[in-house]
């Protein structure tokens, strides 16, 4: 009898301690969203609304939490969605000045809550990629881009043979998710991080045969 009471008491205590079991996945998603809403606030140039994920980010985040990649059909759909956003250079010029491109690749500034609206955004490229060999401070999150144009046989970026590589590279920088649904790489053009002229300069860094990248 006494023993039985103890068991009931214990069960009650567990119940009182907070519903005993962890909520299901959908409730956790909802709870997380509520916590995000309550935890983050506007600061400087960054509005809390930048946390409202688009479909690409929502699907990729969910896949990351689940620990398995998007299924092929969804990945293809996401890539198609992103490919549609790619805008060709307004003046038709895919390549700018590689020297300017190097500066953009080095620059990791812009769009944080401590930056001003006037801050010129950088490309953050060296954070993740090896590019010009001379820069020893490079990241390894992305693949090496050293000899990018040379390895792809680009002798003349304006030639017909080079066109597919040039257009792919433009598209990859403009919206990386057009080619890899859940790529770690930002969508520089699509999200307005870099403008078309800046992207053309980065293109030149990668593809201009005179760029140190292709030496």
């Amino acid at each position, binding site marked *: 009898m006494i023993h039985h009471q103890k068991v009931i008491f214990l069960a009650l205590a567990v119940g009182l301690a907070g519903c005993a079991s962890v909520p299901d996945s959908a409730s956790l998603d909802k709870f997380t969203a509520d916590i995000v809403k309550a935890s983050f606030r506007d600061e400087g140039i960054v509005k809390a609304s930048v946390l409202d994920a688009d479909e690409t980010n929502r699907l990729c985040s969910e896949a990351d939490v689940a620990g398995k990649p998007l299924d092929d059909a969804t990945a293809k759909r996401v890539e198609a969605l992103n490919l549609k956003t790619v805008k060709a250079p307004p003046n038709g010029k895919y390549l700018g000045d590689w020297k300017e491109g190097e500066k953009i690749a*080095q*620059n*990791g*500034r812009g769009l944080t809550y401590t930056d001003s609206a006037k801050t010129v955004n*950088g490309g*953050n490229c060296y*954070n993740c990629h090896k590019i010009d060999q001379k820069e*020893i*401070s490079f990241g390894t999150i992305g693949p090496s881009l050293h000899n990018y144009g040379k390895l792809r046989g680009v002798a003349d970026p304006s030639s017909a043979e080079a066109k597919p590589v040039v257009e792919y590279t433009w598209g990859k920088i403009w919206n990386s998710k057009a080619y890899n649904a859940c790529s770690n790489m930002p969508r520089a053009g699509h999200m307005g991080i870099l403008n078309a002229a800046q992207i053309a300069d980065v293109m030149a860094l990668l593809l201009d045969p005179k760029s140190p990248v292709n030496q």
Partner: protein
Amino acid sequence: MQTRRNALKHTAVVAGLLASTGLFPQFAFAFNKSAFDAKSVADALKALGASGALTESKDVSVTAPDIAENGSVVPVGVATTLAGVKTLLIMVEKNPATLTALFNVTESVEPAFQARVKMGQSSDVYAIAIMNDGKVLFAKKEVKVTLGGCGG
């Protein structure tokens, strides 16, 4: 433009002021502003009144990393195995002001000091020993300063 004579006069005044405060009379010594404002190794030595020819010596050593991950904190050690050293200096050639630290050596301490300095860019770092006999000996080492982190 400050002449050397003015600098000396200035130094004497400061020393007098310090001594007169009586707070740490035994420590009273003058901060040599003109030496710390100098823009080159030669000018800094001149301001310190070290007139001997600057000579490289294997008996003087400078320890510093080959690459500093951050220029804000670069560990530098200066030392000499020679007796009769009056002053040990740390200089960073390409800093806005070259002379960074000066240690007056006494009989009671070893002529070996470690400190940390700021470097605006890659540069030679000098350890310089001013000897009691007026000789000026040095060792130098190039330290590369890299850009770390994601700040750009």
